[in-house]
């Protein structure tokens, strides 16, 4: 193992390119960030019935989230303790009253405890008798949920979920508060897209407000052309043309969209999404919200200025439109994203359709937006192989942000404070791993 000089790799205004490419650093990230921090597993509504399961990776670990007979949600390592075979072989489904291994029929309760072992006498006198915990599936060290969103941590140590989420928990509040019942439900279509680039490019990109009008120019101006024509001909255009056309707004406009950056690398891109037109559906919907929460609270919920919330290091939540993308890193240069959207409970169908159209146009595998993001990140990963330079720069508006109570506020929306703050968190996770005396 090569020694790692973190002071050299991560500087306040730039990072060394190897943080995106190096296998040893990737392994450290998996072990000490993803396999310790609270990682999103899925939404409660994905596993409604007893035995419903959903499989995902936490870091490098194949895991399964399952609804137990007592209706609680368990998160278990998806592994038979006998010979190590994966127990659930599909992304989602129902496993009945328990898990059964396809290799030798070891069976387990939904909480992971061993149920039966064939020819069990054969284990007499060994350390693998059914009363040994070694015969049961292993559970995640900690499982907690926040407003229906289920998280697990593979480490007994560390902050609780709410402390970890901090102010960024507004991602889930903003999503749920937009329902008069305070709840959302996952729409059971999960798109998965693989990017040929490091996971950090995705996280940086989500709050990078200088890129949209460059990267997404082609789609933004194409949508605006149709949007303007419709407005001229018919007086109005569907909201989803606006979703696309705003990507190509001016640099100045984007520079006025500020970011707020929290501990642990979380952050928010503030922007009003134009979701309060005065059409009859919206008027009816807003009345429902104010009826449920009162005038003042209702107005607060409807007026929240959020474009994206990031839960570092893997989650991007677009709460006003009920979208969520979750990263599952596979290799230094390969990252899977799971893409979900949610239905607000108790709202008119027209309000769901807003989030549906955003999901279809921006987040589906035929996205007219992310096509160019993924291309950028692929080229970034290729570019980092170059010896034409060693550093990745985060100098824009360096020193120009405002810090208050440990929270960093941009004064120019396009400030690279976003990346600087993410690397501050990255640095403290990795520093705690390689210099255990340093506090995370």
């Amino acid at each position, binding site marked *: 193992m090569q020694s790692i000089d973190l002071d050299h790799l991560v500087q306040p205004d730039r990072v060394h390119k190897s943080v995106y490419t190096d296998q040893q650093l990737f392994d450290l990230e998996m072990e000490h960030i993803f396999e310790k921090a609270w990682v999103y597993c899925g939404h409660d509504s994905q596993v409604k019935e007893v035995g419903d399961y959903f499989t995902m990776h936490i870091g490098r670990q194949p895991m399964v989230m399952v609804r137990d007979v007592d209706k609680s949600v368990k998160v278990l390592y998806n592994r038979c303790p006998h010979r190590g075979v994966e127990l659930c072989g599909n992304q989602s489904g129902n496993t*009945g009253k328990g898990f059964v291994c396809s290799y030798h029929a070891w069976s387990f309760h939904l909480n992971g405890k061993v149920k039966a072992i*064939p020819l069990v006498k054969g284990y007499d006198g060994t350390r693998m008798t059914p009363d040994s915990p070694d015969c049961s599936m292993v559970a995640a060290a900690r499982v907690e949920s926040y407003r229906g969103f289920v998280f697990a941590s593979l480490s007994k140590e560390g902050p609780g979920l709410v402390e970890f989420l901090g102010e960024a928990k507004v991602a889930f509040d903003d999503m749920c508060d937009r329902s008069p019942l305070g709840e959302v439900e996952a729409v059971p279509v999960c798109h998965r897209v693989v990017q040929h680039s490091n996971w950090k490019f995705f996280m940086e990109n989500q709050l990078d407000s200088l890129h949209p009008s460059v*990267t997404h120019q*082609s789609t933004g101006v194409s949508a605006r052309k*149709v949007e303007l024509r419709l407005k001229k001909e018919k007086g109005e255009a569907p909201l989803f043309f606006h979703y696309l056309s705003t990507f190509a707004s001016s640099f100045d406009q984007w520079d006025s969209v500020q970011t707020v950056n929290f501990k642990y690398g979380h952050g928010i891109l503030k922007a009003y999404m134009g979701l309060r037109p005065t059409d009859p559906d919206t008027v009816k919907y807003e009345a429902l919200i104010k009826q449920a929460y009162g005038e003042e609270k209702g107005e607060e919920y409807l007026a929240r200025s959020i474009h994206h919330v990031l839960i570092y290091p893997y989650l991007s939540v677009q709460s006003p439109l009920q979208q969520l993308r979750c990263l599952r890193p596979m290799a230094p240069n390969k990252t899977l994203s799971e893409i979900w959207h949610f239905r607000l409970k108790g709202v008119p169908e027209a309000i769901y359709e807003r989030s549906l159209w955003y999901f279809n146009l921006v987040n589906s595998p035929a*996205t007219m937006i992310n096509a160019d993001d993924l291309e*950028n990140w692929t080229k970034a990963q290729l570019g980092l192989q170059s010896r034409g330079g060693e550093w990745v720069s985060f100098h824009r508006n360096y020193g120009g942000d405002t810090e208050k109570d440990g929270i960093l506020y941009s004064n120019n929306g396009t400030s690279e404070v976003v990346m600087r703050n993410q690397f501050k968190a990255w640095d403290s996770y990795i520093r705690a791993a390689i210099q255990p005396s340093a506090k995370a």
Partner: protein
Amino acid sequence: MKTNEVKEALGTGVVIEGIQSMSGADSIEPDHMGRGRQPSQGYIPKAVKVDAALQRQVEEFLFHQAALLDTKAWGEFGKLFSDDGVYWMPSTPTQTDWRREPSIFAEDKLLMEVRMSRLLHPNAWSQAAHWGTNHMVGNIVIEAVSANTVEVYARFQMMEMRRDDIRHFAGSYRHTLVKQGSDLKIKLQRVDMTNGQAAYDYVLQAWV
């Protein structure tokens, strides 16, 4: 002698019987069920008798559409659709309403215009990498013919080359064609891709 012991051991085998009452797995988990086969959501087309000229016209139409995609003739591709035409790739084969369910593509002519215009824009960055497709269309079945419409089922294979990578997509087309004079136009093209819910290595930039 070792050799003799092995010989003896090999001489005293058991004949494995067929299943008497229940299998070994059942004896452990009698109520074990529902973890294997996923029921097919597929669709079996039913052919109707049509005259050879119509069959030929429909086949030529589908082959022409594939050629327009493979030559990036987006403008001509769009013109194959009627003014109220829709291109729809649902997420799952059980979906029925292109406007109300999460889709991979859900595009009327206005949204198709946005996609076309994007693909032709000089700063469509993702279009800079070498990219090309090859579609094969076959198994063409005409399912219904009325005075104004023809319902057609077909299957496709598509190979895509991008940068140095090859991807492969396949599935079924269901076209609702409308007769406009001697021409056919697409009122609805439904594309059910067999690998529609697999993880995408990169995304789909153009219609399949």
